[in-house]
């Protein structure tokens, strides 16, 4: 049972991240490859507060969310000056820079050793130690995230963001403040990623830079592609499928010595298949 619980918990945390990435990449069209860096900052902030005992879980989570809002706004600012592939590469640079900081800033992040022994999340003094309790908490958190995404998308705000993705200039000509809309979307995405980071750190009880590297950012992007862009369903389906995939691929019988590479190979094939045959993902719109 714990296996399914831990799968659900991780998938729900990744749903928050999927929402964050989908908002930025799918809805507004800012091709960020550095969402894992924001996720990591959220995780490190919560861990540092809990390990030093200065704040309890919920206030720490709030601080992490605010910090990630600010950070994500700063990270997406280059998209106002550079566009398209240039932003993708800038964002690659930001991600690698973040990895370097996570790995080398031993004082704040524990460096490559990571931070072991992060206490479990607690709600108003009641620690959530059982996997089942944590699942309840992540379900509520992911549920609230989905609700927020849904409300934002069906409101005039969502319409405005979709219009910006299609044609920024036309939106400005219609008298709208494009800058404010983009910044607020980045802020919202940052809040999702920061909360996801905090929850992740307390559930795992151990974090190190490998969870927040370029691979993780690419995985988030892949979740949007496989799940589907711009829809709530897509943001949910993507994480659930992609986390299940390695587990399902384990079931394919392959000689042990090459099994792992063969599975990764199948993963690559799957990415190609989606790109070629189903660019709208499982439950979304065309990217």
């Amino acid at each position: 049972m714990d296996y399914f619980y831990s799968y659900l918990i991780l998938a729900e945390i990744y749903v928050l991240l999927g929402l964050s990435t989908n908002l930025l990449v799918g809805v507004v069209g800012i091709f960020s490859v550095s969402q894992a860096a924001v996720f990591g900052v959220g995780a490190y902030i919560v861990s540092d507060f809990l390990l030093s005992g200065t704040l309890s879980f919920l206030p720490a989570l709030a601080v992490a969310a605010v910090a990630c809002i600010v950070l994500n706004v700063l990270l997406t600012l280059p998209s106002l000056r550079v566009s398209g592939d240039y932003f993708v590469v800038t964002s690659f640079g930001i991600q690698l820079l973040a990895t370097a900081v996570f790995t080398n800033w031993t004082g704040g992040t524990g460096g490559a050793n990571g931070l072991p022994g992060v206490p479990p999340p607690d709600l108003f003094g009641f620690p959530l130690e059982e996997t089942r309790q944590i699942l309840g908490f992540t379900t509520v958190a992911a549920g609230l995230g989905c609700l927020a995404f849904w409300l934002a998308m069906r409101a005039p705000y969502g319409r405005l963001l979709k219009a910006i993705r299609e044609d920024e200039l036309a939106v400005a000509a219609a008298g709208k403040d494009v800058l404010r809309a983009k910044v607020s979307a980045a802020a919202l995405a940052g809040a999702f990623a920061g909360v996801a980071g905090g929850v992740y750190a307390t559930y795992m009880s151990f974090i190190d830079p490998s969870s927040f590297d370029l691979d993780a950012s690419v995985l988030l992007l892949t979740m949007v592609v496989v799940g589907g862009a711009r829809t709530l369903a897509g943001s949910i389906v993507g994480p659930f499928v992609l986390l299940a995939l390695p587990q399902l691929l384990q079931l394919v019988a392959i000689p042990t010595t090459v099994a792992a590479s063969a599975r990764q190979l199948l993963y690559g094939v799957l990415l190609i298949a989606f790109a070629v045959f189903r660019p709208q993902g499982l439950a979304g719109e065309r990217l």
Partner: protein
Amino acid sequence: MRMSRFWLAAVAAGALLGAAAPARAKTIELGALLPLTGPGAVIGTEQMRGIQFAVDELNAKGGIDGDKVHVIYDDDQAKSDQAVLDFNKLVSLQHVPMIWLAYSGPTLATAPLATRRHILILNSGAQSDALQKASPYLVNTLPSTEEEVKVMVKYLRAQGKSTAAVLYENDAAGIGGRDDFVKDFKAAGGKIVAQEPVQFGQTDFRPALLKLASAKPQVLYVVTTVGMVPLADQLHEMNHKWLVAGTTFMNNPQVIADPNAAGLIHTQVEANVSPALMAAFQKKMGVEMGFFSRQYYNSAQMIFIILDHMIKAKTPITGANMRTELFKIKTFATPVPMTFTSNTAIVPIAIEEMKNGTEVTITHSVAK
């Protein structure tokens, strides 16, 4: 709908697995969580070969009292969240009582789970000091870097070396080793003149070596886990005058065979196996039996001894019982002698020097 077909395939695959499971009634299932893809795969596959070779050897001899052993390998890509997921799967779905791990990250991430669910986890590859107290259920068959460093520092000071530079891998293993060395070498009256990191998997050591060389140390202490052959070559190419000292990770058949490696010395956690075994391994796996293969082969032998005791005593095979049995047996005469007074094995540590394609033992010592 493509989507429904996808899930159909998933369910079908699950059913196949379910159908296959009961066929192995007299099989003891164990788990291994190793980095089998990604940059860490160099080490992970070597470890997997060690375990699998031991298991095949055992099963060919008829298993333990007739029971076959089967190891389920999962790839965690050296990532901690993947490791947690895989750990839970191995425990919840496949009900394994013990799991091999590698790398500090995944090991530290699964340690609290092991405590909670009474699963024995066995690390035979990572040496980070944080592993010593992570969980009562985490057993390390490899002494921490700290033990190796002590032996080496003592030797270096005895040789009259008083200045040292450190080349370390910028990850948990390398940084831990560097910190230990810097602390101990200073405490022993030596001086650290320079230190420089390299990234895991990086094979261009030249910039770092040049910078270290400019500090003119008498000793270069190396704490890296991969890329030893390029390192030996690039050291040779510099025509340096210093003594190069390393850790167990330097013990790699390719390095020893490399003429450029002559004169390197390193501490060696003893993991010697007989030449006959080495040859058999080479024949079956197609590669030489590297240090990690030997380590995991040895820890597999230890597990077999524990299982043998338990089967004979008809003790149910659970993680908690395996742990109890391990500390009850305490000393194992697998090809390498191991003694457990804490969660970390006491293993003999030697200092060896590479010479003409072989290694010569300079001193012997026992950790702790």
